[in-house]
């Protein structure tokens, strides 16, 4: 599969899903008018990619400054799919970057770590 790349906008993150090198990155802001519309195609391409992996390593980097409630729901589905791929024998490493004083994003990350234990979760606090 080819790389999926979307440049950031004021309300959507940079999406750099480099499927060939097994590295997926989301970075920036996420509060589109419709998170379902924005993430729909990204999630379906990712699901297709994950289905093709067999005993491989995948690095996922999430560095979001802010995400709204509907994006939160989409991210949760994304991690659910990553967890399924991990349970199927792949090694999924999630680097979760959050601002040092952003308890909301850290708490959401911890929810993800709790719900999806097959993912190797690493939280990184960033100084603002």
């Amino acid at each position, binding site marked *: 599969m080819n790389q999926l790349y979307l440049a950031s906008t*004021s*309300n959507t993150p940079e999406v750099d899903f480099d499927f060939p090198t097994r590295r997926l990155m989301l970075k920036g802001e996420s*509060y*589109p*008018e*419709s*998170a379902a*519309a924005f993430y729909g195609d990204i999630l379906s391409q990712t699901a297709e990619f994950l289905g093709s992996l067999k005993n491989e390593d995948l690095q996922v980097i999430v560095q979001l400054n*802010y995400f*709204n*409630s*509907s994006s*939160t*729901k*989409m991210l*949760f589905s994304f991690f659910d799919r990553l967890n399924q791929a991990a349970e199927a024998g792949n090694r999924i490493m999630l680097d979760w970057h959050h*601002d*040092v*004083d*952003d*308890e*909301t994003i850290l708490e959401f990350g911890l*929810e993800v770590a709790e*719900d999806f234990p097959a993912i190797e979760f690493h939280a990184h606090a960033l100084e*603002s």
Partner: protein
Amino acid sequence: MTHESLSQDINPCFPGLDENLIFFYAGYFSQNIINAIGDSVRLRIGQSDASGSVRRKIFSTFIEMAQNIVHYSSDSLTPPEQTNLEMRAGSVLVTHVDNAFLILCANPVSQAFAEQLTPQLEPLRVMSSEQIKDAYRKALRSETSESSKGAGLGLLTIAKDSSAPIEYGFNPMGNGMLMFTLKATI
């Protein structure tokens, strides 16, 4: 100039809240307008002495409220069935009163929509912050309801960040519609 006439001048939507006003906007909201206002709210809050955590909660509450207006206000410039590039009317206010930031929003809704909203809002007024967190965790893991254009998580997100119970009201507008107002305290 008396305080009353000043409040008429600055903010006609939320009486008595003009002192220490940080931000007020009334009119049509679209995603582009939210982006622009969001930048301005971030800058204004950044100039206050609020902690990083408080600033983030104010911004998040503002975005959830403004996006609710774009999705659900009954005063729509775009056709009601259109689900992207929507433009709908409402107002949002941010002010600083007694060491707390208040964020209020208002938009017209139909009677039927008010009846859908009330059972979602009323429990949030009586739940403890732990109960709100639990409800949020459940909603995050549940399927999105059909009437929701977002995730059904928006009101819970607002309630979770509010340090006091959220307040809401529906006031008859005379044209059969109700003016819905919602208030959060950060």
